[in-house]
């Protein structure tokens, strides 16, 4: 059990706690945007995909090349998740208008 690992666990536990606190405050009326928005945030895995695919390009060992290919697919998948998630959430949230803001 290394020091770095304990630190990582600490970050994890605190983040879960913060997430819990922040998200229980979201009212049911916004649960669908919450879900699609948090969905976009889970596309953060793009960082891992970029790092892997970026540093493995042009490797000459077989596993390195396979890993690079998987990383590239992961970049595409994660980008769909990120861009699609944020845009659709934005589209939805713009529909929520108060009485005063109604069009027409």
């Amino acid at each position, binding site marked *: 059990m290394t020091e770095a690992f304990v630190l*990582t666990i600490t*970050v994890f536990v605190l983040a*879960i706690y*913060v*997430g*819990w606190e922040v998200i229980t*405050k*979201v*009212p*049911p009326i*916004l*649960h*669908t*945007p*919450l*879900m*699609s928005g*948090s*969905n*976009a*945030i*889970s*596309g953060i*895995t*793009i*960082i*891992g995909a970029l*790092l*892997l*695919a*970026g*540093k493995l*390009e042009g490797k000459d*060992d077989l*596993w*390195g090349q*396979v*890993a690079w290919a*998987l*990383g590239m697919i992961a*970049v*595409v*998948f*994660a*980008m*769909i*998740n*990120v*861009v699609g998630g944020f*845009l659709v959430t*934005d*589209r*939805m*949230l713009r*529909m929520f*208008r*108060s*009485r005063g803001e*109604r*069009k027409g």
Partner: protein
Amino acid sequence: MSHPLILFCYLVAAVLFIVGLKRLSSPKSAASGNLVAAVGMLLAIAATLLDREIVSFTGLIVAMAIGSAIGAATAYTVKMTAMPQMVAVFNGFGGGASALVASAELLRRLGAGEPPEVAVAIPIVLGVLIGSITFTGSLVAFAKLQDLMTGQPIVFPLQQVLNALLALALVAAAALLVLDPADLNPFWVVVGISLALGILLVVPIGGADMPVVISLLNSYSGLAACATGFALENHGLIIAGSLVGASGLILTMIMCRAMNRSLANVMFGAFGQAGGAGGAAAVAATGTVKSGTAEEAAMILEAARSVVVVPGYGLAVAQAQHAVRRLCDQLSDRGIDVKYAIHPVAGRMPGHMNVLLAEADVPYEQLVEMDEINPQLPNTDVALVIGANDVTNPDARENSNSPIYGMPIIEVDHCKTVIVCKRSMNPGFAGIDNPLFTLDNTMMYFGDAKTSVEDLSRELREL
């Protein structure tokens, strides 16, 4: 390890995610909150691209452009009624990406001749496992919601025994992989079983339980990102993944509570199956049903001072949101107080009905949640139930033999008059009788939701 400045950017990104989610606590600030979170993501991506370990950008930029184009095209074309399946499919891609990243990290380490130690191997295996289950599970959820396959639960003999055996084999293979990551055979077994389990765990779940499944898969996609974060020792991934994991878990619990069922019952109970087979026999309603015309319904509404509309998914299926909003505008113009009572499981995902009504330009002040509206109902003149059934069933409160006994409902039977707009006397998805329909103060108004509401509007104009 990346440059400290890049790590610092990840911290800022994480803070932006938290601030963004925090701003979702009110419809006023929500749109800006989403923007803040998107800026956080942009910062995280930009910082990552500055990492000097990245040797070439061409491939990355092409891949990012492809993903962005697909994501944007989907986001702008999807219909609001199809939102649940779209979220499911995006979830699947997120989970799939995490599984791929974890797999790639394992292969990279083996290729470089440095097999991961236990503290790294465990999160790698978890990332592959959770990510793969999320991927195929989400695709099945998508297929069910998109009607590409039956929405009914699919069950077969020994299903749960098979699942249990597969789960055991999965744990065994995962353990072998952690102990000796250099041997790739257990890795393929983990991938194969996880992909299969994702399918097998979702097929026995019925369409009406999809809100729970989607919330749960949402949580998984966060946990998969988290596991990947542990494998890569990247705090940015861990923080963002945990936020999503917590969010999905909270929504899962809220959905289960709203249906008065445990998560285990939703996952393994194959609800609705008995109703699907025996539904026809249960139609025979006891007591007399009073049915009325559009003119009678319009007269009742016209005489009311307060009206509560209870929308169900049937309303969305009939695309009646706009017609209902126009009817309510007419009522408001006559000085009648109009509100919408939203049950937590109305629609096909948490909060879905609110989005559908917001799209029809209903101001959000009129959207009232169940716990808030119930105490007001005894003082409400008319409840107009449109395309909703089980969420108004008084049996859930009074009849301990009812399959939905204990489920929280919108207590429209406490209103002075109830108008139920419904296609026919057929029972709802769960195949359960609704005694609301035979109450003395209930009037059934039969017909397609959209046409009925439009007729009602016309009659009201003539009064």
